[in-house]
């Protein structure tokens, strides 16, 4: 059972990393949880595109207001933070 949960989590993480890498025009293998979105050149407009792609991919709604970047689903500052926030949203909205 734990293995199944971990597998789902890895699947979500893999898809999110894929989306971030595609936005940043880099290789998914080069991203680590610590990689910062700003260092990937993903600005506020880029983040809006990333969240759109994630919402479409997982059929979820990501509550994020660009005017209050630290509120809502979490601060989307690093690859790890985005993955964790999206895993939680998928669990809550699709669980």
């Amino acid at each position, binding site marked *: 059972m734990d293995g199944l949960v971990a597998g789902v989590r890895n699947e979500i993480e893999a898809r999110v990393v894929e989306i971030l890498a595609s936005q940043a025009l880099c290789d998914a293998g080069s991203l680590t949880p610590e990689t910062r979105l700003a260092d990937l050149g993903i*600005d*506020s407009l880029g983040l809006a595109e990333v969240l759109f792609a994630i919402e479409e991919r997982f059929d979820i709604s990501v509550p*994020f*207001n660009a*005017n209050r970047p630290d509120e809502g689903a979490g601060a989307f500052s690093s690859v790890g933070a985005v993955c964790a926030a999206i895993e939680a949203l998928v669990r809550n909205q699709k669980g």
Partner: protein
Amino acid sequence: MTGNPALRRVVITGAGSVNPLASDVPGTFAALAEGRVAIGALDLPDLDRLSIRIGAPVRGWQPDAYFTRQEQALYDRAVQFAVVAARQAVTQSALVLGSDEGFQAGVVLGTGGGGSTTTDEAYRAVYAEGRSRVHPFTVPRLMPNAAAAHLAMNHGLRGPSFTVSTACASSNHAMGLAFQMVRSGAAPVMLTGGAEATLSFGGIKAWEGLRVLSPDGCRPFCASRNGLVQGEGAAIFVFEERDRAVGRGAPILAEVVGFAMTSDAADIVLPDPEGARRAMAGALVDAGLPPDTVGYVNAHGTGTTANDRSESLAIRAVFGPNPPPVSATKSMHGHLLGAAGAVELWAVLLALGEGVIAPTAGWRAPDPECGLDVVPNVARRAGVEVALSNAFGFGGMNACLALRKA
């Protein structure tokens, strides 16, 4: 530029508006002076599929009260607002054009979305409802120059008529061009302003994607701000050569004295304070006035973090550490996008004509990164001789008007 004898002085001799606060002149002034907020729950088809469900609509709009059946078939909602506002403005101005003048007078309007309600309804019909045809006047209703065309037809304006579209700066660009045309002698009279009606399902859905809309209200320059709120409506003004206006005894609401437009050439959505600063400074240079003559700035003040901080920086760069009072009336009537500058010119007329500075409503706590006197929540009496009106559009396009008490 009053030093150049070749240039005419330009005054406003009529004003009209249909906006979320009121559908007439006295009502608009009263609401601005009261700090009344017209933002509230929206009622739209498929509202449950929107994450943002507030706006500042023109509530209870009754086209039957203003238009024949044939006119209604031709007029998009935005055009309806513009036509009614223009009737009010021309009536107040008591404008009558001589036969030759009609060939020189024109109309220049701003709009961001044009007939976007018409577009939304037609798309819904063919895509969502699977219908095979749309109304035969869909094209003349949705074209962005429709409002300007109907104003030209209704008021016999046979000179230069066109529409400019620079997103949220559209109507300031329009009014600035009208000002320049009257000032240069190209036209004795211009109708100008803007109209917008984008509070449709598609109009809001498109904005949702940028994640800059507030779910609960528009609080510009406030620490609690969380975005902009869309509004709709129109405001139309009669810009007239001053000697002509004085000669016929027309009411003079204010004098337009300066205009400048700049381009950030930086980012498609994020504002650059330097572009805004250059627009304000340029309008004052154009007017031949020093910054310390300005008693009021009507801010672009959208309630987004990006705009409010950038605009605050720009204002302090123009005026120094103690800028004049600044207010953002989008807190009351919402963001009218391409018509924003036109409706907000009402706050400038209120300040210059009545000595009342409209407040920034909904304001709760200062944002230390703004550091402006934003006339929070309650209007203020002040003798204002000169005022600036800012409008900054996506695309980094900025337009600032300077006006002087008549």
